[in-house]
């Protein structure tokens, strides 16, 4: 199809190059003149969307690597500094982190599309297998990328996933030690994961080149599943496919931007805002949503080795798909039974994803086993059987016939694509709910926060009062180590002037040194200094507080969450509700009760808190009415204190939130306008083709 091109540039300089390296001819034959079936629908634009996502991930990743420190002691902090201090660092980090999810979202659509339309069948077997290899590489890359921020989920995800290899008979332990570079997951592991996370995307890019090459040799499949025979069946790639792909991309970007600017932590886990702690495993280890179906398969098998084998088989089996499904009709459009089974399979995958996010107990285990059997049965029983017993409907003679036949139902197609996008979006959302089982805490009441929603802004007065509460009460035990005094004067913050921030800083004693005599000394704080922590180290904090170290509060409102439950979490996606953390912190501060209710025993040295998981908290009731006086006449009540200090801590956790939402609104406005322009441009261009 893409044989030697007869393309000749007219510019003499380009001609000179072309005679020595026919690169312009290659580009012309691959991306301009390349004949593409004229009946492709919008599911085919996901190839272009994936190319864009790969380029974007590599670009933002290379940039993040300029600021990131791959060291066990510094990685978590360096990520926080990227988000807080680097110019547009928050944007780049959100793009990269949400981008990984979007990449997987797009690849799953791409794969299901291939499955539905039989794109793996002769002569596209190698094309399909290359795709499976890309998918495997993506999974490895995504996993190692998730380890890099070195939060609790990073660390324990790395531990659990690397331990999969310990299931290998005889060599398991040696393999795991080799992967770790130590006796446990630690600094050497982080270093090599960083190195490989940087390498693998370029390997993916290489395999993508092969994937596209194979595609251009075999030619694209199409919804009708019949090969292009004449000129009438195809249109040139540029402008037709290019413009259509660009419209698809611009719609996808709107979806992507929703996450980047409004829901950056929706797909993440609150536990990953707690620095890695090798001594404490989070209550529920859940991988990122895109691994959940395979995680569910792993957990359904009660035998360690068999579970690991089943999990990897679930992916490897895709390589054999071209031979498992020997039906001659490609497209499921003309296969009434295969079509139904395809949709059942999609539901099975989504349900497996849901089960992967639930705790492995009771009904979930049994359902997981049934669905695991269904998953494998689709490939090993249903598809081979259907090839023998199914009577397909007649396929059109040519692509041109197919186009003529369906030109009446075009509006319906567009509507169905839109509907499918919405459904797919909410399904993605459905797969993300984390396994935060009831741990004995009452769900905190959802509060009204000035900073919630797309136009949310911090209440300056509340921030200033919250700072006062933190300084006079919380700071006795809790650090705020990622916040610098200069931040108090940053736009979108408490609204102090640089001079006020400097005066505030000078009230603090900061340890500095060594001086010329080699001694440490104390000096007044400067704007560049960070809030000093009340204890010199974790052991001292532990010793002074009955064995429980008070956590640093810089990220507390992002590091705490609670289960929102179904269907609330799906509604949250559309209402942009992101305030579980503030709700929880506020509730804890107000949840102390002098007497535990009957039936709840609180150990010595702990206190009853209605909202704390397990109810027994080591922190004594920190706030009481009248403890802090406000200059602005706000009521000196615990309710007010809790609300203000939580607002302040939300700002401390995300000082650029106002900027994020403001830029988000601009980006949204632009993208919607651009998508409309692209849509009409696409229609004009395609007007010539019909």
């Amino acid at each position, binding site marked *: 199809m893409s044989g030697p091109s007869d393309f000749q540039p007219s510019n003499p300089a380009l001609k000179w190059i072309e005679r020595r390296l026919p690169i312009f001819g290659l580009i012309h034959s691959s991306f301009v003149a390349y004949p593409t079936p004229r009946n492709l629908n919008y599911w085919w634009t996901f190839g272009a969307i994936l190319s864009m996502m790969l380029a974007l991930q590599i670009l933002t990743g290379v940039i993040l690597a300029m600021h990131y420190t791959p060291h066990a002691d510094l990685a978590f902090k360096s990520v926080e500094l990227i988000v807080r201090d*680097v*110019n547009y660092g928050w944007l780049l980090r959100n793009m990269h982190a949400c981008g990984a999810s979007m990449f997987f979202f797009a690849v799953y659509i791409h794969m299901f599309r291939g499955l539905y339309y039989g794109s793996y069948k002769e002569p596209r077997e190698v094309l399909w297998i290359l795709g499976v290899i890309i998918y495997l590489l993506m999974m490895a890359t995504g996993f190692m990328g998730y380890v890099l921020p070195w939060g609790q989920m990073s660390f324990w995800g790395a531990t659990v996933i690397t331990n999969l290899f310990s299931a290998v008979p005889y060599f398991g332990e040696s393999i795991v030690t080799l992967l770790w570079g130590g006796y446990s997951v630690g600094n050497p592991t982080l270093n090599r994961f960083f190195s490989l996370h940087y390498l693998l995307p370029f390997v993916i890019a290489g395999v993508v080149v092969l994937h596209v090459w194979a595609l251009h040799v075999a030619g694209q499949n199409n919804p009708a599943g019949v090969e292009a025979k004449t000129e009438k069946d195809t249109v040139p790639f540029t402008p037709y496919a290019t413009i259509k792909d660009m419209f698809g991309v611009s719609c996808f970007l709107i979806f992507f931007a929703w996450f980047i600017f409004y829901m950056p932590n929706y797909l993440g886990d609150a536990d990953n805002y707690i620095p890695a702690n090798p001594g404490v495993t989070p209550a529920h280890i859940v991988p990122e949503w895109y691994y959940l179906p395979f995680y569910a398969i792993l957990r359904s098998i009660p035998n360690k080795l068999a579970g690991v084998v089943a999990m990897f088989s679930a992916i490897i089996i895709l390589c054999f798909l071209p031979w498992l499904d020997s039906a001659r009709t490609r497209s499921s459009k003309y296969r009434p039974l295969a079509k139904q089974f395809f949709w059942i399979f999609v539901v099975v995958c989504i349900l497996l994803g849901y089960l992967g996010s639930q705790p492995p107990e009771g009904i979930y285990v049994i359902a997981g086993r049934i669905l695991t059997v269904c998953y494998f049965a689709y490939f090993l029983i249903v598809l081979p059987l259907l090839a023998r017993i199914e009577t397909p409907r007649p396929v059109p003679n040519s692509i041109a016939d197919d186009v003529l036949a369906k030109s009446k139902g075009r509006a319906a197609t567009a509507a169905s694509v839109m509907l499918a996008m919405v459904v797919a979006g909410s399904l993605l959302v459905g797969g993300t709910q984390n396994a935060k089982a009831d741990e004995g805490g009452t769900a905190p009441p959802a509060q009204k926060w000035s900073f919630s929603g797309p136009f949310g802004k911090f209440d300056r007065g509340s921030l200033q009062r919250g700072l006062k509460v933190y300084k006079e009460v919380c700071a006795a035990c809790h650090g705020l180590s990622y916040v610098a005094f200069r931040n108090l004067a940053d736009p979108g913050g408490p609204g102090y002037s640089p001079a006020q921030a400097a005066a505030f800083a000078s009230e603090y004693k900061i340890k500095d040194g060594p001086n010329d005599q080699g001694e440490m000394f104390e000096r007044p704080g400067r704007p560049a200094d960070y809030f000093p922590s009340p204890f010199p180290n974790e052991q001292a904090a532990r010793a002074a507080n009955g064995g429980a170290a008070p956590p640093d509060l810089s990220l507390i409102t992002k590091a705490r969450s609670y289960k929102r439950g179904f269907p609330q979490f799906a509604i949250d996606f559309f209402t942009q509700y992101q305030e579980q953390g503030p709700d929880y912190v506020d509730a804890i501060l107000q949840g102390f009760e002098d007497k535990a209710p009957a039936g709840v025993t609180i150990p010595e040295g702990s206190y009853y808190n209605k909202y704390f998981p397990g109810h027994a908290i080591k922190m004594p009731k920190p706030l009481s009415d009248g403890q802090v006086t406000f200059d602005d006449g706000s009521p000196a009540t615990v309710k007010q204190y809790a609300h203000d200090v939580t607002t302040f801590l939300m700002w401390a956790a995300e000082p650029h939130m106002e900027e994020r939402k403001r830029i988000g609104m601009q980006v949204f406005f632009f993208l919607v306008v651009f998508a409309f322009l692209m849509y009409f441009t696409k229609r004009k261009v395609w007007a010539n083709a019909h």
Partner: protein
Amino acid sequence: MTTASSADHPTRRDFLFVATGAAAAVGAAATVWPLVAQMNPDAATIAAGAPIEVDLTPIAEGQDIKVFWRGKPIYISHRTKKQIQEAQSVALSSLPDPQPDSARVKAGHDQWLVVIGICTHLGCIPIAHEGNYDGFFCPCHGSQYDSSGRIRQGPAPANLAVPPYAFLSDTKIQIG
């Protein structure tokens, strides 16, 4: 595509293509901005570059110290009478980068020379009290500076730069 129209009669199609292309260009430019701006110093680096105070009392006549400000070495020299004399008496016309000594020190504080200790040739650190001019000598390519930090000999094109600073008292300066 545009053959159907001519320049005199722009069609709605042309307008649409131009508008879409322009929007794409604006979007691309706006995207590139943060990708490039992230390379500039981050907020923590800028905050750490705030002015510093240096106590001059421990520096005896004829001695000099090196302090760091914004990652740059700053030489603070307590010049001898002889050095001041030499710096003031040299004929300006004989200097590659003519500048009187009075423009390089603060009035009334002739004995204190404060310069950024980075050779203006290619950024090496000159050594104090070396060279033929009672000033600085750069070991990399042989540039020689006098007791006022002015280039006298060698490949460097300009005098050692004087950082922004001020005397807070007779014995204390603030750099930056």
